[in-house]
């Protein structure tokens, strides 16, 4: 091996190491910080000298963080379930049936996913208050649909379009109803797509911040992102950083595990829907 090739290889792996450090270090630092309590958090140690779970204990014992997690799970799951159900029916029409106005509807769905959330904030606020849903999880589920529903519809339509035409031709000959075609032929084929789309929609709803911040009032109704953003210390100037980092680790670790487990499906879902988490 010539020195030039060696140098090039060295530079390449240095680049790989830099990328790994850049992407992983902040999360590593959050874990390390969450394990330090008292004044240890103010010392820069790359491994905690005296690791402790005190921050995690305080999070659940001294504030309603468990409640916030349940709220987030509930809101994100229900919003995802509704979006998958409505998305898959709509996608069947948009992906498998030729009719006038299809392009217009697809365009509308795409445009809605470009809406800035702030543009619907006052209108949604009025609607939610009029329906008596202010400071309720139902109100949050409802408002999350503007994020998750266009996304599931778009990705599932793209998926259904790719399936071969012969699928329903054979079924139509057998005189199956279109509802049976959908439930018995397409749904089983769509299982992996539904799982990946569902996970991405779940992440969208789980991460939602602006609506949850604006449409809730009491800590018992807050979702995780709002709870984390609003954690305060004894005084306004003393944020309990250890606790904030513990909360960050708790809500992020399961997501990272899920994402790593399903990474292949996620990458294809991302490419189809071009969604940012």
């Amino acid at each position, binding site marked *: 091996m010539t020195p030039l090739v060696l140098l090039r290889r060295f530079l390449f792996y240095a680049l790989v190491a830099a990328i790994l450090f850049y992407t992983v270090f902040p999360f590593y630092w959050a874990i390390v910080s969450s394990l330090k309590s008292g004044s240890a958090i103010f010392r820069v140690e790359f491994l905690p000298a005296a690791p402790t779970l005190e921050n995690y204990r305080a999070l659940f014992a001294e504030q309603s963080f468990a409640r916030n997690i349940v709220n987030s799970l509930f809101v994100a799951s229900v919003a995802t379930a509704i979006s998958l159900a409505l998305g898959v029916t709509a996608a069947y029409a948009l992906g498998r049936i030729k009719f006038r106005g299809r392009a217009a509807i697809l365009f509308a769905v795409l445009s809605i996913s470009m809406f800035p959330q702030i543009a619907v904030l006052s209108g949604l*606020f009025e609607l939610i208050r009029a329906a008596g849903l202010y400071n309720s999880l139902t109100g949050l589920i409802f408002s999350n649909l503007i994020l998750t529903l266009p996304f599931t519809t778009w990705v599932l339509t793209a998926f259904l379009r790719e399936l071969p035409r012969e699928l329903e031709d054979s079924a139509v000959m057998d005189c199956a109803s279109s509802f049976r075609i959908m439930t018995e032929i397409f749904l089983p084929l769509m299982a992996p797509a539904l799982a990946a789309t569902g996970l991405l929609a779940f992440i969208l709803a789980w991460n939602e911040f602006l609506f949850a911040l604006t449409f809730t009032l009491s800590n018992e109704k807050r979702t995780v992102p709002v709870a984390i953003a609003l954690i305060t210390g004894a005084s306004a100037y003393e944020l309990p950083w250890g606790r904030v980092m513990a909360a960050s680790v708790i809500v992020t670790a399961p997501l990272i595990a899920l994402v790593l487990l399903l990474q292949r499906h996620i990458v294809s879902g991302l490419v189809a829907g*071009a969604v940012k988490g």
Partner: protein
Amino acid sequence: MMARTRLAWAYLAPLLITLALVAAWPLLRTIAFSLTDANLSDLSQWQFVGLANYAYLLSDPQWWRAVGNTLLFTLLSVGLETILGLVIALTINAHMPGRGLVRAAILIPWAIPTVVSAKMWAWMLHDLYGVVNVLLMNLGLIDRPWAWLADPTLSMAAVVLVDVWKATPFMALLILAALQVLPLDIYEAARVDGIGPVKSFFHITLPLIRPALLIAVIFRSLDALRVFDVIYVLTGNNENTATMSVYARQQLVDFQDVGFGSTAATCLFVIIALITTAVITLGRVHVSASGNDR
């Protein structure tokens, strides 16, 4: 075929009704509110004020500051994300051991909720105890701790840094997907002709992945133009970094001025709608132009 059409609309009805309720109606109400002096405490009491809110908005230097901040943020963050995303995608695309590991690692920032990533970085950028200042001082790059989030000039750099960290994986994955379907024989031919890697990147790779790159840049730009979470969590309503979304929410919620806040929100909506339409139209023109070439 009439039956099929009717069937299609029946399948679409639940989606259309929900979207009308959750998106179209609230948007129309926001636009209607922008012509009134409605207040958050009682939305049923309002007076029609015509375009007075718009006139006031256009004369408010804070609004123009927010417009400038939004454009600067979008330009810097999307620009950096594109360059970094290209570097990361090209690196992962090279054949090497542990490639799956690197791809998994870049998914981590993407999976982290925006609010959480903002908090993690707020702690890392803490002026007194932040690890970033300590590292930079140990390396001798700075001689005293920098107040990343409080300093008027540094705070924009800080929010861009955090957004770039969070959104680059998205860019890299989209570019990677485009890279993986490139025909390899072109590179073989280029190598035979003695064309170096840098030249073949600019003359072969870049033109071939341009459509995918363009889509990624458009999606990210539209996201950056409406940015709220990362800015609000890192720097609150601070005028040095407040974007249009932050400005509108402050008027709407903090100052309870639903009429005026809706005006700002409507303007942001119009700006994004105009850009989207322009992009789609230009995209079509471009597609037909490249069709004529062949």
